[in-house]
């Protein structure tokens, strides 16, 4: 079984299905195809990676790429066919979709890929740069409509995910009986056991001990930091609370 990292970008338009939703659907389709030959599959986390916002970049409204990892026996041809079919079916007419597929067991220059991702957060990159790097690293990078400008973000998203220090997890965490409308205090141990998260992190980057307690309220979201899927928390008075959207914005 191989590990694959898949990233898509620029699939939506205002008032159409978002890129994150399409990524999640592709991940589910791949998982379903995988399950035909395998008994189970690990949870697939889709991460959102913010890219550079600049007048020279034709993003829809926020310029972010969506990335996920999957472990499967499926061949690269099957993986790509599932991704492309869904992209063509669900992308907005005005979109410029890009798709990047990385075989994580291959020999590739991870540092070059991470550097490209980090650069795409602060500088305007070109399609040519993306295609050249993809060819050099053996990454399957393809465009599927419009200008195909999404290949830049798709490749950058792979690098940012691999950096282990970028991105918010799509969606909200399922924490058992916790409901968004009612505040509840849970221990870190409880949060980890109920969510399949790997850590609870303070916004200073410190890992909370398992006996620390966190007051949860509103929507609870995770981030990807220190190569872990983590609940981000902030200090509030004498305790910890889940991070606000204003705090999560920077992730």
């Amino acid at each position, binding site marked *: 079984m191989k590990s694959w990292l898949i990233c898509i970008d620029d699939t939506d338009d*205002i*008032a159409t299905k*978002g890129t*994150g*939703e399409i990524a999640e659907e592709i991940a589910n389709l791949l998982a379903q195809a995988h399950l035909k030959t395998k008994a189970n599959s690990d949870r697939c986390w889709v991460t*959102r990676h913010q890219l550079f*916002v*600049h*007048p020279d970049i034709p993003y*829809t*409204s*926020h*310029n*972010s790429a969506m990335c996920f990892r999957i472990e499967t026996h499926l061949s690269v041809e099957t993986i790509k066919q599932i991704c492309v079919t869904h992209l063509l079916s669900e992308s907005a007419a005005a979109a410029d979709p890009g798709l990047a597929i990385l075989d994580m067991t291959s020999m590739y220059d991870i540092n070059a890929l991470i550097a490209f991702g980090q650069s795409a957060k602060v500088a305007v990159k070109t399609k040519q740069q993306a295609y050249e790097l993809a060819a050099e690293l053996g990454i399957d990078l393809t465009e599927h409509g419009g200008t195909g400008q999404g290949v830049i973000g798709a490749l950058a998203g792979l690098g940012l995910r691999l950096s282990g220090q970028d991105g*918010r997890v*799509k*969606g*909200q965490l399922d924490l058992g009986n916790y409901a968004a409308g009612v505040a509840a205090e849970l221990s870190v141990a409880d949060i980890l056991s109920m969510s399949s998260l790997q850590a609870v992190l303070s916004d200073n980057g410190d890992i909370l001990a398992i006996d620390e307690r966190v007051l949860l309220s*509103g*929507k609870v979201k995770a981030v990807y930091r220190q190569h872990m899927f983590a609940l981000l928390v902030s200090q509030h008075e004498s305790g910890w609370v889940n991070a*606000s*959207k*204003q705090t*999560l*914005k920077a992730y």
Partner: protein
Amino acid sequence: MDKWFTYIDGVWRFNFDSEAYLVSREAAQQCNLFLEDDEDEQIDDHLRSCYNCLYRRWRQNGFDCYKKDYATKE
């Protein structure tokens, strides 16, 4: 409306940066066309905020409103 936006090249440009949460909420409260964006793209815990609106397009330091027929309750 002029209090919050300036009309430039067919879009309404927010007169403030991306940290003016109270102003963003105030503007959205007065807008008939507010529509919440995908939850993953929201950045304000207060839902009715232009920062959370489907029709805002981020700029390097602020955003433009792409709802051409922007209207107020006034």
